Every structure is written in structure tokens, then in C-alpha cells.
């Protein structure tokens, strides 16, 4: 019996970075996961709605949690920002029954289902980086990454604030490293892996944002990485789509392909490359595919 999740891919994976959504959907049956669609779910607000209208942010996110509760399944995410926004709202109302009552009052008035506070929100990385998840991957008999040198890149909002996220030590995370190693890759370690990619301000403050992503890109390059892997499609856009602009601004060359987490697993499990839609990436994946023999 596959593990059922209410699947919340988030707006970026659904639209701009469709390759992430497509790969996750193709990967799910291989990992014994059933992804249940959430047709009513809105955007989580990405921190922007929280910054403009905090009460509206909370109510919209609790509405999403309530849809999953009605489906009887915990939420599975594939984006750092969605994970933080949903978990934060969940924590706020679970810890404060009066607040939950207020939010439910608004939901009922709008014709939405009230939330009872029984749902958990987890990221695909967290689901897989447990002993259970890693043994599941082993059972699938990965073809392996053939020693591909992979730089883990966590970004921010899957780690911090740890009072909301709490899966692992935010200063010494190991979940991506465990996955890379289990899949037959080699970890390229570097300091920038928990630093910000700059994406939340890339449209409003491009230069500041690109200088931030430079820290991680140059760190991964200097550690000898052939590729970076990230659990977040916003980090992916900053690192991949904007990479050329960062190179121009900093006067440096990275030539660093960037994988979405499910693509790394897909490569190791021998998923057809067309399914993972690498043609939608900006930085060439040729060397990576040659190394793993895909």
C-alpha cells in the first residue's frame, strides 16, 4: 500500500519550473508514494502575503491545511518556501486554540472547511532522508551516480527558523549528504550550502540577490563540484536561470549545472532523461549525464 500524501507542489514547480513537478510525479510510484492532488489549494504567499497582510496569509494557509485534513493525508512539499509558510501557519494555530478559533471563524464565513489541527507538512527531502526512506531507495537498487561530485545546496527556509522547521541541525545539515552518498555520489562540501540564494529579492534588488547567490555558486565550484542539488525551485531559478547574470556581475565563471532534488534521485534510479526535462535548464547538463552514463 503506497504512502498517500496531499501533494502541494507550489506555484513555481507547477508553472515556471515544470521539470520539477514532472520529475516528482514520475518518481513517486518508484518510491511507493501516491500523490493526491489538491484542487482548492492556493499559493502559500511565499512570505510576500505575510509581509503585506499577515492575517490573510495565516487564513489562506490554514485553508490549504484544511483541504489536506479533509483528504485525510499529510502534506508533501517540494519547495522550501511553501514548506516554511505552511509549517509556520500550522504551528501558529496548533499552539494557540484561540487563534485557530478566529481563523476558523473566517473560513466558515467564507464557506470553507474549518481546520482541526491534525495535519503535518513535510518536504520530500525529509521523507527520504530517514532510515526508512534511505532503505526504500536501496531496495530500488539504484544504478547510482557513478561518483558524480555533487554540492548539496540547502538554501534557507528548509533549515531556518529551526523552531518551525526542526528536521535537522540548521548549521550542520546532513540530509542531502546522506542522500547523495546513498545514491553513489560524492559530496563536495563547502561553507555556502546553508546561505541564501537571494531569490526572494531578485526582482526588487537584483544586484544584492546575485551577490548572495555568488557565495554558494563560487563555494560549490571551488569545492570541485560537477553539479549542485537543491530541494527548492526558487533556489534553482536563482542558481540556474540567473547564473549567467551573476557571472557577468561578479566577473567570474561557474558553469555549474543545478539539479532539482528529484532529478538527482531520478538519475540514480535510471529514469529516462526526457522525463526529467533537462532541456528546460539553463546550464548544460551534458557532463553530468556523461558521468552517470545516462
Amino acid at each position, binding site marked *: 500500500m503506497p504512502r498517500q500524501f496531499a501533494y502541494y507542489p507550489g506555484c513555481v514547480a507547477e508553472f*515556471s519550473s515544470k521539470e520539477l513537478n514532472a520529475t516528482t510525479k514520475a518518481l513517486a510510484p518508484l518510491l511507493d508514494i501516491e500523490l493526491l492532488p489538491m484542487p482548492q489549494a492556493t499559493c502559500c504567499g511565499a512570505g510576500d502575503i505575510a*509581509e*503585506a497582510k499577515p492575517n490573510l496569509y495565516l*487564513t489562506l494557509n490554514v485553508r490549504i491545511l484544511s483541504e489536506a485534513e479533509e483528504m485525510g493525508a499529510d502534506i508533501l512539499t517540494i519547495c522550501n518556501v511553501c514548506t516554511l509558510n505552511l509549517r509556520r501557519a500550522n504551528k501558529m494555530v496548533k499552539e494557540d486554540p484561540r487563534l485557530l478559533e478566529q481563523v476558523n471563524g473566517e473560513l466558515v464565513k467564507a464557506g470553507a472547511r474549518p481546520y482541526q489541527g491534525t495535519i503535518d507538512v513535510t518536504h520530500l527531502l525529509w521523507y527520504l532522508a530517514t532510515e526508512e526512506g534511505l532503505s526504500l531507495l536501496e531496495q530500488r537498487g539504484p544504478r547510482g551516480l557513478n561518483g558524480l561530485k555533487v554540492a548539496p545546496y540547502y538554501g534557507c527556509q528548509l533549515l531556518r527558523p529551526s523552531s518551525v522547521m526542526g528536521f535537522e541541525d540548521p548549521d550542520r545539515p546532513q540530509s542531502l549528504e546522506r542522500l547523495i552518498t546513498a545514491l553513489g555520489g560524492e559530496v563536495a562540501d563547502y561553507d555556502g550550502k546553508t546561505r*541564501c540564494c537571494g531569490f526572494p529579492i531578485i526582482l526588487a534588488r537584483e544586484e544584492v540577490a546575485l*551577490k548572495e547567490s555568488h557565495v554558494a555558486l563560487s563555494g560549490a565550484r571551488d569545492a570541485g563540484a560537477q553539479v549542485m542539488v537543491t530541494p527548492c525551485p526558487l533556489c534553482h531559478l536563482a542558481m540556474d536561470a540567473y547564473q549567467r547574470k551573476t557571472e557577468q556581475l561578479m566577473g567570474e565563471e561557474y558553469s555549474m549545472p543545478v539539479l532539482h532534488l528529484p532529478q538527482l534521485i531520478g538519475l540514480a534510479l535510471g529514469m529516462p532523461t526526457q522525463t526529467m526535462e533537462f532541456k528546460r535548464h539553463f546550464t548544460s547538463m551534458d557532463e553530468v549525464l556523461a558521468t552517470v552514463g545516462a
Partner: protein
Amino acid sequence: MASTTFRVFRYQPDSGETESYHQDFNLDHEEKTTILDALLRIQNEQDGTLSVRYSCRSAICGSCACKVNGKTVLACMTQVEEAKAESGSAMVQVDPIGNFAPIKDLVVDMTPFWEKFKAVKPFLIPDGPAPEKERLVPKAAMEKVAKESACILCAACYSECNSLAADPEFVGPAAFAWGYRFAADERDAQRKNRAKLYSGEHGVWDCTRCMFCNERCPKGVDPRDAIEKLGAIAFQEKVTKDKGARHAKAFLISMRTGGKLNEQLVGGFTDPVGGAFNAPLALRMLQKGKLPASPLTHKVKNRDQVTKLIKNVKETI
């Protein structure tokens, strides 16, 4: 008893040492010893030239922030043995706080921090003549700013702020926590002016949401949350010209018109002028299918619920 090697950042330009380096000190100490006590014992017993800034030893004065194994903490409230257990290393490395220029050893030049602190006007500016007695405030009103009032200006947040590392002019988390503390004080009459003062280049919309400040604050101030609340105050006061505020507005419009993010709208609405310079990137994103060719909205099921929530939910910031 325990024994620890401390690898301490040294920099003594007044003594002709132009380059910084790390120096190892071995120390036998009680199991329950703080990093600050260990540093002071090294200073007293091994090298009197070691410079450390400290005062109260009780996590109140905010003077002794430093990096222990790369993580900014108050030296007086961090146990040596706990730091070792956390890092899994028998050695403890001590460095000055980040995003500052060192003056001598662990002492940094805090001038930019204090200048930015002053710039947010971190004091009450009420309207009208002073009352005969004090201005009374209901308890609930002060609870709104209780967290921010706990800030001790230790700069642990500033030390690891990722926006500051990229833009040294960014006002930074601590100053904005104080800005919110007064903007949200019901006795203050400068709410709108503060919203204007805190917007613009290097202001609240420069925060990259790396969340390091919330993670590091030893007093639970959560400066990022204060910055977020200043954004909400800016919206309430209709101070929304900044590109950062327009970015947030685009999310609200997306929500109102469909329920999910409209990528074309966010790009175009945030920066209609400067966005033109990004035309080559936008074109490549179109080619790669990363931008939709049409500006159609993405509509969720039962969208009328979302519309009603947008209309009904009142902000209480």
C-alpha cells in the same frame, strides 16, 4: 575537569601585525565553564594582550557576541562543553562577529551598527504636549511589542545577515526590530513617517528572508518577523511604491485573480521600468518555457472562498 584547545582569532594592527591569524590556547577547566570565562582565563593566565569586549557576564549587556565554531552566540551564555558536543569537535574556534571590521582580536568596530540604529529613530515620538503624568498604555498594546523590546543590541543577528553581507548599507535586523517596536507603539505619532523612513534602498524590502537573524537571536526577538510586520505597517499606511512592496502587491493581485502565482504579473508589476533591462533574460526564460507566453491567471477550485477571505479578513497589525 575538562580540557579544551581554543583556536582564537588574533589581529593586532597597533602592534604591527597587519595580517590576522588563529592562535591555539590549551586550557584545563571545570565542566561548567562558559566561553567568556575561558577567554578571560586565557587573558589572565596565558596572554594578557588578548582583547575581548564584555561587561555583565549575564546575557544582558550584549557586549560579548562572537562566533563559536562559526555560529554567532553570546560568549557568556554558551558553555564550552555544549559547543564541543554540538560541533562534534574537541576544539573550539572563536572568531569576531561577522559583517564588521575587526579592530583588535575579538573586538570589532561597531560604528555602522550604531549609526543605523540611530537612523531608525529608536525612541518614542508622541504628538502634542507632554501630559502631566505618564502616558498610560493598556497591557495588550504593549504585548504587541514585547518581543522586540527584549533586544539587547548584541548584533548576533547583524553578524550573520545575508543581505548585509551582500549590501553593507542594508539597515539590518536589530535596527528594524527597534523600528517596529516604536512604529507599533500606540503612543507614537510617526507611524506613517516611519513606514516611509524604513522603505527605500537598503530598507525593509532588502531583507532576503534568510532567517539567520531569527535563528541566532539569543533573546527570541525574531527580527525577521519585525521586518515582516514593518512591511504590513507600510501596506496599512499605503507606503507601497518600493519595488519590494510592489512585489508583494503582485502576489495579492495573483491571489485575487486566480489563487495562484501569476509569474508574468510578478515580474512586470514589481519593476516595470528596470524590468526592461532584463528583457534578454525574460526572452531566454520564455524560450525555456519558464515564463508563460500568455498572462492568463491560474484559477483554483472554490475560488469564491478565497475572494471572500480577501474581502473579509481584517489586519490587526
